[in-house]
C-alpha cells in the first residue's frame, strides 16, 4: 500500500530536531530499529529513551539516553540498527529524539520508523480460567 510511499514523510517544524513519543499497549523488549529517510535531510543522530513520559525539548539533555545511534546512508535506505538489548528489556514507552540530520539543513524528514522486538511473557488469562473449571 502507501506505507512505502516516498512522498509521505514527517517533517520538523521550528528547527531541525524531532521528538517522537511512542507508548505501547503492553510491555515489550526491543531488538532493533529501522529509520528510513531521504539521503540529504534524513536523520543522523538518534537518541532513544525508554520509559520516560512527558519529555520535551527542554529536558532531553537532562538524562542519558538508553541508546544512541548515528545513522549512515545505508541505515536510511532500510538497514536496521541493532540496539543494546539489555537496556530495552522492559519497555512501556519509547521516546525517539532526532538531534540533527545528514546535511545539517533547517528541516529534517523521516519516511519510516520500524521497531523490531518481542513481547514480554505475561499471564495467559484463558489458561487460568480452564484450570478453575475443572475443580
Amino acid at each position, binding site marked *: 500500500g502507501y506505507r512505502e510511499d516516498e512522498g509521505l514523510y514527517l517533517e520538523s*517544524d*521550528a*528547527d531541525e*530536531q524531532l521528538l517522537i513519543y511512542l507508548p505501547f499497549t503492553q510491555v515489550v523488549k526491543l531488538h532493533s530499529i529501522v529509520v528510513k529517510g531521504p539521503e540529504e535531510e534524513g536523520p543522523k543522530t538518534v537518541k532513544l529513551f525508554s520509559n520516560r513520559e512527558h519529555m*520535551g*525539548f527542554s529536558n532531553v539533555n537532562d538524562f542519558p539516553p538508553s541508546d544512541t545511534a548515528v545513522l549512515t546512508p545505508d541505515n536510511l535506505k532500510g538497514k536496521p540498527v541493532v540496539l543494546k538489548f539489555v537496556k530495552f528489556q522492559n519497555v512501556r514507552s519509547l521516546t525517539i529524539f532526532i538531534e540533527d540530520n545528514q546535511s545539517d539543513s533547517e528541516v529534517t524528514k523521516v519516511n519510516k520508523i520500524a521497531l523490531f522486538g518481542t513481547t514480554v511473557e505475561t499471564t495467559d488469562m484463558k489458561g487460568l480460567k480452564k484450570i478453575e473449571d475443572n475443580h
Partner: protein
Amino acid sequence: MVLEATMICIDNSEWMRNGDYSPSRLRAQADAVSLICGAKTQSNPENTVGILTMGGKGVRVLTTPTTDLGKILACMHELDIGGEMNIAAGIQVAQLALKHRQNKNQRQRIIVFAGSPVKYDRKVMEMIGKKLKKNSVAIDIVNFGEDDDGKPEKLEALLAAVNNNDSSHLVHVPTGPNALSDVLISSPVFTADGEGGSGFAAAAAAAAAGGVSDFDFGVDPNIDPELALALRVSMEEERARQEAAAKRAADEASRQGKEEEPLSNSQDATMTDNTNNTAAETTEKTADPMDEEKSLLERAFAMSMGTSVSDTSMADADTSKATDEDKELALALQMSMQDDTKDPSNQSDMSKVLGDQSFVSSILTSLPGVDPNDPSVKDLIASLQGQPEKKKEDEPPKDDK
C-alpha cells in the same frame, strides 16, 4: 476551560511613570493583570498564574505559577518603577518558570506587556519566538505606551515566529480615554479563554466601561431575568429623577440667561443630565476659529439634539469619570438606553432650552465672532426650533415598541 499555566511579564521600567494611561502606565498594567488573573482562575480553577518584572535592576520573578490570587494581588502592590525593560531575558525567564511548573499537563502561556521601546533587533525576537514554538509555549503580547519605529514590526516578527494555530495574539492599545484593562477585555487575550472566562469578562466590561452591548443593560433576560427586570425598574426611576432635575435646571437657566449657569448646574445636578452636558459641550465646541465657527455651530447643535449619540455619550463618560465613580452604573444604563430609544423627554427639554430666545441669544452673544443679528444665524435658530417639534412627533410612535 483549557488547563493552562500563565506567566505575566510586567514592564516596570522608567517609561511607566507616564500618565497617558490613567492613572499611570504601571497602575494600568496592575489593573489589567488583576483582571487577567481573575479570568484565568475562573475559567479553570486549576489554572496557575505567575508574575515577573522585566525592568528594574534585572528580570525578577515575583511569584511562580500559583492558583493563589491573594499572593498575586499582594505582589502587584509592591511594584516599583526603574531601569529599562529587558524583553528577551524576561521571556526566557518566563519560559524557564513555566518549564518547572508543577502540573505538567498544563499548557504554557506567556503574557508580555511591552510598554517601553524594544532594544533587541528582529533576528533576536524571531529566535526567541522559534524557541517558544518548539517548546509549545503560546504568547500574548500587549503593545502599549512607547511607539518608536520598529517596535510594532519586531513584535509582529515575534508573534509570527511563535504562532501556532492562532493560539498567540498581539494586541495594540492606543492611548485614549479607554483604560488598558477595558481594551484588553474585548481582545483575544480574554476572549480566547473560552466561555467561562468570557462570562467574567463580560460582567467586568459592563461594570467598568459602561459601554456598547447588544442587550439593554449588558446582562438581560437570557442570562438573568430578575436582574434585567431590577435594572429596568431602577432605570425608569433614574430617568424620572433626571427629568425633574433637568426641568429645574432648564428653568433656572432660562430665567438667569447667563452662560455660566448651565455649566455649574451640570456639575451640581446629576452628572447624567444629558441636556446640560450637551449645552456645555456646545459652547465649548463653538469657541473655535471664526472661519469655521458657522459650520461648527451647526454641527454642535445637531449633536446636542442627540442625532449623533456616540459623541454625547463620550462626553457623558468623560464627565462621569471626572466627577463621581459611583454614578457610573447609572450612566451606563442611561447610555445604553439611549442606543435603543431616544428619550423624548430630553428632546422636549432641549427644545424648551433652545426655544427660549433670550437664553439662546445670550449664549450666542457671549461667543466670540458670532453676531446674533446675522441672518444666517437667525435662520439656523428658527429651523432648529422647528426641528425639535418634528422630532417629538417621530419619537412617540417609535417608542411604542
